């Protein structure tokens, strides 16, 4: 401890604290413009200068550590004079017109000028070149006339988001903030995450969408959880009345620490779309007509009753929604199990991370990310395989990039040289579908070079001999032939993994969406166990979940084999427990149908009634033609949704639902964190919360469910009925959410699973796995491999992002990415329309020629319906989880003659 005197007050402070920190801790105000505590300091604004006795000049309090006995004055005449002069200098150039400025009321410059009693600038600098407005970006307006060059935006772009677009250009009084090599922001590599806008203390960077919407003092802030992707970012919604006028990241909040991506920050306004469903719809003679809730619900109940009575409960199926709150999924599986007595409940984890849940339960005993997103910034090794994080999980990617900048090694394994590969120490461009072979190859080197963690393998894992035997069948030479990665690189990567510990493995759908998806997952688990990278901080196997609540929908039991909290439906004890809790009898005790079987079942008439909650399966399931055929064959389809979609067309009844922000509940992100989603407005028209809809249908099945809000459902049912969630209550997660397992009210939750090698299942299970090729490989007729995924600016089939202003402009159509080599060979120009066809369909799409794509690969997404990649994808699935092999099928490409 040291003693310092600030403004005649004697204060105790910790050593190594800056003067600014000590002052702030003690309620002494020192203004700053450029300071970003704990992130990065430029020390450039000089507004925070203070007078220190004995010092030759004024001292910047943000940069200077206090020393024992220091005597400081934060508001002496010389300090105030310097501040006044600096503020006058800042005001004297550019245009600081508070009347017109978005930032008025929360502008640091305005605030400090006010405090110093500066009414108008004392002088005008005439010799400065006039700054201009850069209006080229879709989401961000750069008004350089208001820029004070504090460089917080540069820090945000380079050190927080690590997008490296903004920098400082030129020198002296000509200094400006530049994008790339001084081109307009809209022309630059800017991905429009808006982190710079959030960091800007003045009105130089503003969100275009927010301009003119509200003055800062008219808004209230509501903290909530983002509606996109599995990172689960914490947002501050700036509300004027019931309108969201702006979104910012909640500073210091977990998991995102204030960071957001373009969708999270700007994709909010779909909820105000005029296309929202506002009334229940009933299809009559092929045309929808509006109906009352009673009429619609009665019809749904009676139809399902009829089917169940006639064909049994197995003839109905339900697909829950991974974008809606946990409470909705819980209610839906409860409806199916308790009211319909049907086991057929599933959701879209089937098409993405079901192999993760199955694989990790087999290997470790728990099917979730073992560690946490924040650890990515602190680890020594980042092993990213099959994950295009910068586009699919942009905020998680920022932590990976932070980690790399903090000294970790980054290894990227992917068929595509995606953006993250640019940051990598090693980029292994593997052939599509060769993951198991590649991972076996790495373990082969670790074992043959004696680089593996013997102690961990011996003490904490089983089946070592079988794994070893299998892995030894995969020497680098063989693996190189299968994966296309050179032997040298395989050896190099293996050694790098062994040398840099602890290390985290990250993967996404590049691992799971294969016929060998579950094996891929277990193979990643094998690698991390062999390295001893499990049960420690900054380590683990870390799947990044796709949809915002796909973890939650799994957790809530919207799966055919488990109740919520992964309690097996085949376990009689679980059955008894839920029968008692729900006050019902005859809960189904077998595993139900998975989505592909439900859909196909419509055609074979095994399934007659399908309840689709919030999913646009026509766009998202493989082989669209097949899906349509099946839906057309259905007897009765009901959809809950917020918009009409390609899927609702096939429904008999469409029920209008409350959207994100129109209902209170919880999302669970991929690191198992249960966070609150708050309500800021009512649903439009007659739209109602989904849990309410399910409750009303249950009522028509004679069940009176008591819970009457998200909170009541969670606190009274979900938490008490599952040990994983027992300690989580709405009250406890008002701030940062809690990571399950959290089995008692005192527990802070679990950041790291399987701590110290104590696996949930006892010992970690090393699976001996063989490589198997994709189901459909290129041949002479279809010589290309098609791999699919998503792009930054859209989310799935654009039901949300397509209705958020600006995102369509950022990505206005679908592309097929092809390699430079193939384009040259086929004479295809960049942006030329081409035909891509497979055994299942044909689409016409714009070619995007890219050196990020290897020869022989075509890469597409599913955002736009007409040229959706799923017209082409096949129905081959993972043998265990029936997850489709979206990542590989054979296609041909043709020039349009």
């Amino acid at each position, binding site marked *: 401890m040291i003693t310092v005197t600030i403004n005649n007050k004697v204060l105790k402070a910790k050593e190594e604290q800056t003067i600014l920190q000590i002052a702030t801790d003690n309620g002494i105000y020192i203004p700053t413009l450029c300071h970003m505590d704990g992130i990065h300091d430029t020390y450039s604004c*000089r507004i925070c200068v203070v007078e220190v006795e004995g010092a030759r*000049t004024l001292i910047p309090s943000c940069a200077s550590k206090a020393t024992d006995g220091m005597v400081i004055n934060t508001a002496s005449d010389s300090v105030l*004079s310097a501040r006044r002069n600096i503020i006058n*200098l800042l005001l004297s150039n550019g245009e600081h017109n508070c009347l017109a400025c978005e930032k008025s009321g929360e502008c640091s410059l305005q605030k400090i000028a006010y405090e110093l009693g500066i009414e108008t600038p004392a002088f005008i600098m005439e010799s400065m070149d006039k700054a201009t407005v850069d209006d080229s970006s879709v989401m961000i307006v750069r008004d350089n006339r208001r820029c004070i060059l504090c460089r917080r935006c540069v820090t945000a772009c380079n050190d927080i988001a690590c997008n490296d677009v903004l920098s400082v250009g030129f020198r002296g*009084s000509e200094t400006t903030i530049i994008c790339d090599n001084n081109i307009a922001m809209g022309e630059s590599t800017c991905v429009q995450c808006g982190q710079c806008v959030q960091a800007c203390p003045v009105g130089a960077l503003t969100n275009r969408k927010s301009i003119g919407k509200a003055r800062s003092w008219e808004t209230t802030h509501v903290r909530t959880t983002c509606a996109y992707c599995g990172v689960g970012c914490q947002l501050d919604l700036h509300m004027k009345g019931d309108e969201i006028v702006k979104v910012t990241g909640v500073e210091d909040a977990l998991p995102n620490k204030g960071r957001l991506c373009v969708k999270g920050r700007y994709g909010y306004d779909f909820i105000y779309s005029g296309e929202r469903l506002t009334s229940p719809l009933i299809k009559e003679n092929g045309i929808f007509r509006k109906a009352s809730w009673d009429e619609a619900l009665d019809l749904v109940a009676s139809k399902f009753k009829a089917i169940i009575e006639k064909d049994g409960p197995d003839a109905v199926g339900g697909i829950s929604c991974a974008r809606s709150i946990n409470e909705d999924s819980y209610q839906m599986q409860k409806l199916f199990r308790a009211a319909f007595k049907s086991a057929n409940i599933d959701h879209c984890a089937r098409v993405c991370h079901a192999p993760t849940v199955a694989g990790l339960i087999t290997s470790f005993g728990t099917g979730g990310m073992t560690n946490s997103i924040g650890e990515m910034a602190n680890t020594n090794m980042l092993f990213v395989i099959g994950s295009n994080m910068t586009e699919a999980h942009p905020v998680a990617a920022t932590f990976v990039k932070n980690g790399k900048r903090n000294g970790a090694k980054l290894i990227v394994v992917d068929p595509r040289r995606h953006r993250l590969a640019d940051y990598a120490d090693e980029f292994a461009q593997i052939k599509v579908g060769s993951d198991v072979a590649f991972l076996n190859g790495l373990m082969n080197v670790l074992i043959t070079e004696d680089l593996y963690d013997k102690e961990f393998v011996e003490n904490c894992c089983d089946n070592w001999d079988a794994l070893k035997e299998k892995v030894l069948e995969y020497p680098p030479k063989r693996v190189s032939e299968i994966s296309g990665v050179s032997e040298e690189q395989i050896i190099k990567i293996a050694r790098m993994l062994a040398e840099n510990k602890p290390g985290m493995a990250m993967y996404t759908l590049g691992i799971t969406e294969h016929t060998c998806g579950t094996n891929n997952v277990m193979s990643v688990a094998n690698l991390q166990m062999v390295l001893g990278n499990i049960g420690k901080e900054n380590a683990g196997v870390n799947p990044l979940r796709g949809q915002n609540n796909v973890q939650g929908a799994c957790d809530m039991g919207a799966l055919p084999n488990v109740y919520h909290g992964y309690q097996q439906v085949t376990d009689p004890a679980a059955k008894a427990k839920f029968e008692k809790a729900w006050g019902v009898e005859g809960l189904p005790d077998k595993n139900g149908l998975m989505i592909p079987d439900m859909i196909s079942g419509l055609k074979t008439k095994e399934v007659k009634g399908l309840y689709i909650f919030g999913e646009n399966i026509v766009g998202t399931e493989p082989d669209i033609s097949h899906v349509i055929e099946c839906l057309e064959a259905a007897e009765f389809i009901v959809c809950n949704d917020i918009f009409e979609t390609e899927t609702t067309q096939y429904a008999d009844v469409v029920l209008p639902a409350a959207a994100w922000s129109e209902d209170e509940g919880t999302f669970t992100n991929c690191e198992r964190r249960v966070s609150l989603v708050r309500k800021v407005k009512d649903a439009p028209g007659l739209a109602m919360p989904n849990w309410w809809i399910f409750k009303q249908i249950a009522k028509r099945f004679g069940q009176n469910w008591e819970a009457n809000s998200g909170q009541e459902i969670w606190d009274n049912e979900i938490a008490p009925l599952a040990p994983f969630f027992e300690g989580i209550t709405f009250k406890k997660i008002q701030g940062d959410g809690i990571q399950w397992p959290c089995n008692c009210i005192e527990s802070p939750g679990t950041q790291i699973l399987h701590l110290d090698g104590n696996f949930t299942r006892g010992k970690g299970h090393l699976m001996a796995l063989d490589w198997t090729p994709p189901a459909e490989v290129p041949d002479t007729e279809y010589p290309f491999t098609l791999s699919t995924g998503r792009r930054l600016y859209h989310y799935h089939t654009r039901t949300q992002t397509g209705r958020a202003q600006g995102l369509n402009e950022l990505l206005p159509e679908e592309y097929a990415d092809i390699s430079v080599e193939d384009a040259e060979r086929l004479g295809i120009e960049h942006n030329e329309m081409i035909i891509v066809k497979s055994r299942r369909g044909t689409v016409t799409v714009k070619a995007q020629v890219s050196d990020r794509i290897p020869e022989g690969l075509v890469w597409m997404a599913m955002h736009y319906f007409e040229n959706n990649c799923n017209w082409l994808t096949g129905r081959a699935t993972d043998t265990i989880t029936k997850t489709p092999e979206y990542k590989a099928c054979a296609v041909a490409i043709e020039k349009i003659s």
Partner: protein
Amino acid sequence: MQLFRSHVLVCGGTNCTFANSEKIIAAFDKNLVENKLENEVKIVQTGCFGLCEEGPIIVIYPEGTMYFKVDVKDVQEIVQEHLLKGRLVSRLLQQSSEAVEGEYAIEKSSFFKKQMRVALRNCGVINPELIDEYIAFDGYKALGKALTEMKPMEIIKTIKDSGLRGRGGGGFPTGTKWEFAAKQDNEQKYICCNADEGDPGAFMDRSVLEGDPHSVIEAMAIAGYAIGANYGFIYVRAEYPIAVKRLQIAIDQAKAYGLLGDNILDTGFKFDLEIRLGAGAFVCGEETALMTSIEGKRGEPRVRPPFPAVKGLWQKPTILNNVETLANIPVIMLKGSEWFASMGTEKSKGTKVFAVGGKINNTGLIEIPMGTTLREVIYDIGGGIPDGKKFKAAQTGGPSGGCIPASHIDTPIDYESLIELGAMMGSGGLIVMDEDTCMVDIAKFFLEFTVDESCGKCNPCRLGTRRMMEMLDKITKGKGVMSDLDELENLAKDIKASSLCALGQTAPNPILSTLRYFRDEYEAHIRDHKCPAGSCKALLAYEVIEEKCVSCGLCAKNCPVNAITGSKKEKIPFVIDQDICIKCNVCFEKCPAEAIKK
């Protein structure tokens, strides 16, 4: 090895090179062969002698005869007369010196008499491109002594005891700096030589690098041994091509002799260094900016502390020393700290090199003991002010410094006395100004410089310097008001107090210093709309003095804008129309009767 009876040293410094010294060497080669003297007389290209105004300069040994402003066509005569017949070519001797035997010799001329060449000891004596010549004058002996006879702490003590202070401007005790770095426990440390000599009008460091590059290399190796560093960078301005070339030759030669590299002089000590070129940013002379630049980034200064000796290049302990500082090290090592401390004043030991320029006869490079007075520099060494004009002020320290007015001409020059006068030692630029120099204009000139060279990182410097320049501009245009002076002073003080680095902290010095000594000149600009020095164009009014006008009409004939009317025929005195006059000064220059005043 061949012994020559005579050595002709031709200055290969920048000034003389620019003034054709290379062609002179070629002419000598040719003439010596023609006279069959090639085996008797040796031509040596050497470093700067200092008297740049009089270049190209050659010196002929063993007599030490110095010839000035030598032209290619003079070479034949020098060979014929001096080298062949032993007769002086008196027209090429310095004008003031008489051709008395001995008096024309280099060390006896008035220019050199009061000088004491320590840092410049080898400049103009050896061929900088031959390591053997450096070794001949005890080169690398100090390194040998350090490595074989001394412990690092003993070296540091020697440097501390010598009282050597940083010659780059700050004046921080060199030994103390080394001690900080030596005490840091770190595997990797660095030595940097700051050769980014950026002050306009200063070229001391360049002359050392051009004339005696090995002294810097040797000193860096000694410093490396003393603090425990094994790698060094020399950061040189790209504008110094000759210096860069000679440094590179010197480094290569030192490596070839094993005086750089692994196991130097078989002592196991390892030291290597490389040159890094600046790219035209004055601020990179600031030590933290220099390091940032070596790291490959924008040369923006960092906050201190941490000081470079603790966290410098790539966060490793780093010592930065200026070229001249380093050039002193080997001599101190050989002759001892007491010898060095015997020169100079109580707090400023040794000598200091100055680049003397501006309105002075002997423009050039001088090295004087600390404590020499400004008067001695200007009149005894510098030969006084040209054209009989009056000395007005001397500016030291470049854009960071200030002016010493004529009233303080007897001040002994050392670190403290200059600070007291509101000037500073700086790196050693000394610009002499006479009565025709406007002090407001000079302040504006320096502010324009700092506006251009401010890195733009911190607000006070980025905007404040420009604001001050604007105000000065206003004043020089006669548009100032009296309250501007207080505002200017106030702003200057705040910028000094709140800027991030030394550039900003010292940028207001030219203003504060001129305001201190020449406030009346500022006031004259504002109140009387007059520039007393007759230099600020906007304030000039050209008028014909009727009584003196001879009605020759030359002024009207030469006026580019036809602003002058009168009649030659009718002998009517001419008149200048002030509205048309563009103040081009042509009439003033052309008038044969000095009848035009401004």
